[in-house]
């Protein structure tokens, strides 16, 4: 078997799927957000007009939560590198029949795979909400593109950060400090059109907004005005983040 695929299998078996509690958290949390918070807020939030359509708050929230979960799942790439450094498995692997390039790529592909799987399960469980929606081929491209680019961007970002982290405390602190503003300064929880201008400005610079808007376009046929620009920006930022992660990765001392 190809050495990259062997590494990928290792990441899934020893990394992502070895901690059952993590899998449960990754699946249960978004369902709580969608079914509990979504329906709770929907009682007080009337139907809203987003882009070109009127939709319920639950439908608006669901794609945002899926994308947010992609961001959290992608952070596992950084966590896996951090754990590999801490348990000296990183050095053990790069003295084996693998290149550093294969190592970093396996991390990103594994979290992409995990992200797509998580999203599919969440969509499946949330399918009663989605009854009546038709996803076109173009829409499917938006969905897959959003999930993959989101994984690539956030996976690369967390990998690059993990290169420089030296302690567990720093690792946890950085991710908490980074992810909280990313979550709330985005279009995950609310449409940006009516938000204060400062929040709008910050949110339009946030790749999580692009991924959420792209997923809504694919799933709900809701198109925000800046969607084409957001897609280009997300592609460009994902490529840049991957390049930064690759360069930073050279600095990892085994």
């Amino acid at each position, binding site marked *: *078997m190809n*050495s990259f695929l*062997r*590494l990928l*299998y*290792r990441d899934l*078996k*020893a*990394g992502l799927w*070895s*901690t059952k509690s993590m899998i449960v958290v990754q699946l249960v949390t978004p369902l709580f957000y969608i079914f509990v918070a979504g329906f709770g807020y929907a009682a007080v939030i009337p139907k809203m007009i987003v882009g070109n359509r009127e939709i319920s708050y639950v439908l608006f929230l669901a794609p945002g939560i899926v994308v947010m979960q992609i961001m959290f799942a992608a952070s596992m790439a950084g966590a896996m590198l951090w*754990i590999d450094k801490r*348990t*000296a*498995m990183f*050095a*053990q*692997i*790069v*003295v*084996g*029949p*693998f*290149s550093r390039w294969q190592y970093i790529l396996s991390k990103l592909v594994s979290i992409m795979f995990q992200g797509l799987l998580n999203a599919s399960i969440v969509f499946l469980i949330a399918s009663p909400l989605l009854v009546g929606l038709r996803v076109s081929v173009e829409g499917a491209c938006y969905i897959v593109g959003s999930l993959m680019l989101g994984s690539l961007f956030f996976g690369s970002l967390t990998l690059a950060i993990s290169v420089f982290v030296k302690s567990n405390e720093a690792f946890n602190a950085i991710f908490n400090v980074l992810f909280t503003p990313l979550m709330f300064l985005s279009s995950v929880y609310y449409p940006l059109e009516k938000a204060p201008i400062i929040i709008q400005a910050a949110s339009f610079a946030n790749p999580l907004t692009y991924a959420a808007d792209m997923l809504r376009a694919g799933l709900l046929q809701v198109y925000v005005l800046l969607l084409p620009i957001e897609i280009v920006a997300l592609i460009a930022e994902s490529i840049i983040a991957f390049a930064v992660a690759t360069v930073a990765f050279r600095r990892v001392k*085994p």
Partner: protein
Amino acid sequence: MPECSIETSELTLRYGTLTAVDHISFKVQNGEVFGFLGPNGAGKTTTTKMLTTLLRPTSGKASVLGFDVASEGGKIRPRIGVVQQEQSYEYALNVERNLDLYGFLWDVPKKERKKRVELLLDKFGLQEARKTKPPELSMGQRRRLQVAREFMHDCELMFLDEPTTGLDPQARRVTLDFVRDKVRNGVTVFFTTHIMEEAEYICDRIAIINHGRILALDTVKNVKHKFGGVSVIHLRFAEYNDDLDHRLQSLPGVQRIVHPQQKDEPLKVFAEDANAVLPGIINAAAALGAHITELRVEEPSLDDVFVQMVNSKGGEAR
């Protein structure tokens, strides 16, 4: 196949102003166990990391299995095995799965993996712990797992960086014997340690390194002969005092005296010619009324030679 498994020439690695490895040159022949000995911080692990392509040399050259470590790492890595000094394991998988996954990473077929897992669990005394995850193992068990894991795949050259750290004497012996078996099957071993007893037991040739420089390189026997070059007189007295110590120190032919560090150790007198020194020792003891309870002459151990070499000032390569 290249003539030597490892060949270095003026290999050097600097961290800023610190020279961790300083122009070392040596060859490791195919099929031998080459011991790389030195105190902590001598440059053993740094050398190992350069040879295993983890660190890039600052200057000098090194080839492993005929390939340059700086430019042909991709050709070297699939053919070597490495047991690092740092403990490493898949923390979330139990012992059995750790072994199996490692074999899988090296593309060992499933049937063969199963066979090897059982063999290694038996050999390294890990059968009872096979379903236990590494964080719940003792330090010695984790080390055994790490060493055993490297035997899941075949290799031509194995780097063992202080592989017996944390092992009890029995596990240490099992590990060394297993390595010996592999050597009989044609594997070359680069063995890093600071435990001289191990080096004497397993190594065909040794290099002693300190402050990044090689101080001695030869077979264990020749190193002892060339660099020991002395006899060690083991002595015990019913009473030992400063007067007697001064007398012994001033005897012609006495190189140095090593006082016992523990209660049950003898006094060691190092002399080029024991026969020439012995009458002086006996006379000095008689003159001061000190009763000799034990007297024997021995060749210096590798430990003695090692301590003498690393403690000697200058540490010039010889």
